């Protein structure tokens, strides 16, 4: 029998729970969550494209789903996720040029991502309803 291994208490890097909440941290986490949501949301686009390419009946099924309150909720969330991830990406591009990293600037960019994504989502949906007529 081998000797049971002695458990050595090694220092670990601090875990997420130890940090004080900050807006930059929240937007970083949201960037990852929206990325994952967009990843699986591509299935909605595929469903829509396949239905449009197959038959009027299939297309009507997809349209009815997207027009339902649940479908609208999903699409609204998807729009917001897309725009939040897009603005988050622009924030990363700004950081890549070594700008916007100072205290205050980071927080400004994080809030801008959040506020901008909500404003743009509402704008896109208002345009959508206007075009729908």
């Amino acid at each position, binding site marked *: 029998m081998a000797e049971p291994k002695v458990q050595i208490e090694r220092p670990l890097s601090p875990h997420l729970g130890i940090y004080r909440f900050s807006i930059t941290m929240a937007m970083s986490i949201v960037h990852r969550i929206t990325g994952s949501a967009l*990843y699986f949301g591509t299935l909605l686009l*595929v469903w829509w494209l396949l239905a449009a390419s197959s038959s009027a009946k299939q297309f009507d099924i997809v349209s009815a789903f997207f027009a339902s309150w649940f479908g609208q909720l999903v699409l609204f969330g998807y729009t917001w996720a897309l725009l939040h991830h897009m603005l988050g990406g622009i924030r990363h*591009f700004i950081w890549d040029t070594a700008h916007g990293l100072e205290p205050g600037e980071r927080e400004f960019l994080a809030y801008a991502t959040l506020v901008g994504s909500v404003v743009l989502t509402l704008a896109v949906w208002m345009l959508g*309803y206007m*075009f729908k007529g």
Partner: protein
Amino acid sequence: MKTPFARVRGLGTAHSGTEHFWMQRLTGIANLPLIIAFLVVIVSLVGSSQASVIATLSNPFVAMILLAALMSVLIHMRIGMQVIIEDYVHTELRKILLLMANTFFTLAVAIAAVYAILKINFGL
């Protein structure tokens, strides 16, 4: 000792490692105009019938923009999901299986979407 050629390539001793970082930036830049164009197309099609959706997607310019957006987005999201898997999944077998699934999912989405767009453009 670093040869001038090695310095120009900028890959260091690991010989690789920055491709994903670079590809994520490249596709991210490409995604910006492509997704904005995609949103314009989608918004213009809100509440449209199948016939008018097909008419719009059969426009060569719209079809090509859509295909370009798909390519850029799919490469981008595959790298992104790979990073997430590598960050959070520490069991070797599970990690490998999920990385495989990531590639298969991306390819399945790519093939289905491209098939539909080509069919709308050439096959109806």
